[in-house]
């Protein structure tokens, strides 16, 4: 039996490259490994679309908060404790019976991390980046979202200067519900604008 049988499988080139960059940066005192772990834990476990769902549900039940959100989304969202990288310049775009908003980042994948977490794989794909702008109606249909011909679709291109959060329409038959009851109806996809919020029948 050769020694090779007992050795660790060499990792991929990208794994080695990350290890190289990290160890050099740590040696130079430019990053602290514990701080990196803390950051990863934050994005894996604590930041995600449930934050955005709280913002949306609150806007549905509290007209003052909704007005604040439309006027200064960054501040209104920060008041709920959701701040941080990629959340500095937020704009909320509201769906109505005649306007449906859809968010994309055509250049890379700018996305409002503090309220939605990190983007799903399809959001980062070339087909979505291109087709959300060129043919949003078909893209929405692929997500199972069919809009009437009288509904205008507005596509918002996120940048490092401005990130968008869609405020979906409050689902029918939820009048009088509390924010806590409404939150589970708010999905990540409804806040990107590829779907509508869930209705009480399809939760």
């Amino acid at each position, binding site marked *: 039996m050769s020694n090779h049988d007992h050795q660790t499988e060499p990792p991929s080139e990208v794994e080695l*490259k990350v290890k190289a960059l990290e160890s050099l940066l740590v040696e130079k005192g430019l990053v602290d490994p514990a701080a990196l772990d803390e950051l990863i834990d934050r994005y894996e476990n604590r930041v995600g679309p449930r934050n955005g769902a709280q913002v949306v549900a609150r806007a549905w039940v509290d007209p003052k908060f909704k007005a604040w959100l439309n006027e200064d989304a960054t501040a209104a969202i920060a008041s709920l404790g959701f701040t941080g990288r990629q959340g500095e310049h937020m704009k909320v775009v509201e769906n109505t019976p005649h306007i449906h908003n859809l968010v994309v980042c055509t250049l890379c994948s700018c996305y409002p991390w503090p309220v939605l977490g990190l983007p799903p794989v399809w959001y980062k794909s070339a*087909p979505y980046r291109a087709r959300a702008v060129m043919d949003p109606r078909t893209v929405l249909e692929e997500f199972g979202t069919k809009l009437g011909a009288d509904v205008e679709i507005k596509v918002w291109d996120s940048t490092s200067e401005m990130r968008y959060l869609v405020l979906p329409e409050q689902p029918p038959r939820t009048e009088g519900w509390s924010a806590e009851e409404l939150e589970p109806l708010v999905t990540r996809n409804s806040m990107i604008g590829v779907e509508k919020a869930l209705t009480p029948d399809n939760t």
Partner: protein
Amino acid sequence: MNSTITTSKQNTLSSSQEPVFAEPWEAQAFALAVKLSEQGLFTWSEWTTALAAEISLAKDQEEPDFGDTYYHYWLSALEKLLLEKSILDSTDIKARTEQWSRAYQTTPHGQPIELSTGIKQQII
């Protein structure tokens, strides 16, 4: 571009349960860029420009880009920005990558991988 976004209703629903990072190295690469920017080594705008350039390069080379290669672009952008800003040197990166490779190759399976193993190998 006719390829559909892999988003049938079913995929969409299952994708909401997908892990944030597909592999640990993606998380490490992500955290490095965010931390270095927070510490002022580059602005976030410089970062998004570098990342967009990598994605655009892949597009020019007609690489299939379905979102699963995103952190490859992320890592290339990070390396280029570190070199551009003279934060790291390409010779050092190359040497260190080789040291890590040797460390893996000479560490018995199940043992923690340590860089010193790779460096010792190099000296011997």
